[in-house]
């Protein structure tokens, strides 16, 4: 039982506030399964020496020596302990080779042919006595790693899931992502757009500002996605907050759209675009998907912004204020509030604030 207690300290956190822990480190083995048409390639990467000794113990046959080269001699053991299934039926794996890698590692390559019309794949192995990651991919489409413990079987992976979503489904997905990035999730973007709208209710000034903003954020969104420009969140976030404060403060002092306002709005659009790019960066998209995603996501963002302006217009129209009343009762209090919020965020988002 001492062994259990060895882990006690870490496990104690488990008792805290009902959080649970496991105090075992992870295996050094990794499995990578690639699907190309009907061909499946399984790559098992592990520490060479322990693997060789494990195979010897599992085979019950001692060769009198254990090294990377002897792994080839136990290829049958590897195959016996590897289980690839297509729709629940075991698929015969064929040994290819064991390649020594740097740092005392070895990579074993196995292959299999899937039956026609295979819908799903599973993997299991009794070669690892610990937790190890299994990654499945087809071309550039890679699923997140699934961690298996020992002989655990992966959840069945539908081969459809390894195909990049195409057609309307993909367009809709990225459009929705762009739209929801504004409504309802982008509260600071909403305030920025409202700030632009408040200055002047007429269509032309609103369109000029929104167009400048759209062009700017589209440029940096694209450049960020392709990795051309990159700024840390600690820089982008305060800048976005500052942009919100600026447009709102300017609303308090003027009611006409000056040329510099459009230029500044363009400038402020640049960090907003880098902020948008963060949402796409998390998707871990293949490069071939970049352009389509960029366009559909951006259209979604614009749709979100236009919806904000439409709602704001409807509210303002419903109020039926004269220009003076509008400025006094809507523009000034709302801009003051937006400015306060923008300044507050600017300060609290500075890296040294926390």
């Amino acid at each position: 039982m001492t062994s259990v207690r060895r882990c006690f300290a870490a496990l104690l956190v488990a008792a805290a506030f009902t959080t649970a822990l496991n105090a075992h480190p992870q295996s050094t083995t990794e499995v990578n399964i690639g699907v190309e048409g009907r061909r499946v390639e399984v790559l098992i990467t592990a520490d060479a020496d322990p693997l060789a000794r494990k195979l010897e113990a599992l085979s019950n046959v001692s060769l009198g020596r254990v090294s990377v080269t002897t792994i080839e001699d136990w290829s049958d053991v590897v195959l016996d302990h590897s289980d690839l299934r297509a729709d629940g039926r075991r698929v015969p794996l064929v040994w290819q080779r064991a390649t020594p890698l740097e740092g005392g590692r070895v990579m074993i390559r196995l292959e299999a042919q899937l039956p026609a019309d295979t819908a799903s794949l599973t993997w299991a192995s009794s070669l690892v006595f610990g937790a190890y990651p299994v990654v499945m991919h087809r071309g550039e489409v890679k699923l997140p790693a699934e961690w298996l413990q020992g002989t655990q079987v992966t959840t069945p992976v539908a081969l459809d899931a390894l195909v990049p979503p195409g057609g309307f489904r993909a367009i809709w997905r990225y459009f929705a992502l762009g739209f929801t990035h504004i409504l309802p999730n982008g509260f600071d973007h909403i305030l920025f757009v409202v700030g632009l709208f408040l200055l002047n209710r007429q269509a032309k000034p609103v369109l000029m500002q929104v167009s400048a903003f759209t062009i700017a954020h589209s440029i940096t969104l694209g450049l960020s996605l392709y990795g051309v420009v990159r700024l840390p969140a600690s820089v982008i976030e305060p800048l976005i907050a500052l942009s919100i404060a600026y447009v709102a403060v300017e609303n308090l002092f003027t009611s006409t759209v000056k040329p510099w306002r459009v230029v500044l709005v363009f400038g402020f659009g640049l960090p907003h675009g880098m902020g948008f790019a963060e949402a796409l960066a998390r998707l871990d998209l293949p490069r071939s998907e970049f352009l389509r995603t960029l366009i559909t996501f951006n259209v979604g963002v614009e749709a979100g912004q236009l919806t904000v302006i439409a709602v704001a217009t409807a509210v303002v129209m419903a109020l039926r204020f004269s220009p003076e009343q509008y400025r006094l009762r809507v523009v000034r209090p709302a801009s003051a509030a937006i400015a306060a919020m923008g300044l507050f965020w600017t300060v609290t988002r500075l890296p040294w604030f926390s």
Partner: protein
Amino acid sequence: MTRRVSRLGIAATTAAVLVFATACGRSSAVRKAPTSSRGATRSPAAISKIALVAAEPAATSRDQLSRTIETMQARLSANPADSRAAVALSEALMRQARVTGNAGLASRALVALDAVLAATPNDYLALRERATVYLSMHRFRDALRDAEQARDRQPNDAWNYGAIGDAHLELGDYDDAFAAFDQMARLKPNAASYARVSYARELRGDLDTALRYMTMAAEATSPQDAESVAWHYAQIGHLQLQRGRLAESARAYARADHAFPRHPLAIEGQVRVALRRADYQGALALLAPRLAESPTPTDMALAGDAHLALGHTDQAERLYRLAEVAWESDTPEPARLARFLADRGRRLGDAVRIAESAARERRDIFTMDALAWSYFTAGRVADARQAMTEALRTGSRDLDIRRHATAINATAHRP
């Protein structure tokens, strides 16, 4: 008048907006989460409430855990910066890891928490939870860094002292660990702090008090939280075993197994009791399902011991070899491997090398015991004595440490 109304309106709106802004926290450009639970600008009272909500023991059966994991994962797929979902997912995954032994689930939890913290570096709950995840991954220094950072932000949150103490404990900094546990118990006397006080007492060799506190911890655990109940009773079983009370120990392990069937700690404890009673067949029967399914190195080592006692030397040897490689590469735990090798008289030179390497990383009493015992079995008695002094520094009455210490002392004093 109109101007006054307008100014009042501006002031009121600004105040309301500032309150709202506080709640909203950071940019949605890089974070699209529901933003009401950001810790950096909240009071400790608010935080503790959030913590309770976030840690609600909703998922305690295997099915419930799986459902929680699926639900939270779906929420995170829609919004990777959803802090609450990430913390709830992490908690469920950590629990799942405890009952399945799948340490890889911690990596999954870490990915989710890292995504939240990348978008919202000030997210207190995610930071606090990440310390817990690091502990489970044996990244004790990272855990300590996060937990201390979390403590600096919320000095009244007992959780952080638990994590800080745990990390110090694993690194062998016992005074710091015990101080953190005391602070935790002062702030929040509950099952978690009782369990830690219990372990602190056990490390100091006071098994009776340790048992009393662990019993209090078990009683303070909600019966709805079956997994936690099982965990606490398994610890009681361990303490009874250390006290030499086999019947009481067996009862506690049985209770753990009843609370959460097939809990790994309950099974392992029952096997140890069976071995102590020389019931080797019984031990093997208990281990059989685990050996057939997903054996841990400990399972294989214990099964090897049972086979060896029954005279099945070939089977024992095979299991020992598998346990060795498993501790080396599948569940890498150098100190345990070194102790295993030294205990069974295997690869003694390697045992010393492995134990020395482990002791360079951490100097807790179990690692120092592994080093002492490895030196001793390799014939380096002076080194063994020196290492054993460190292993005994807390006054622990751990049976293995005491057995090793007795053997080393006896040899050292032999003329």
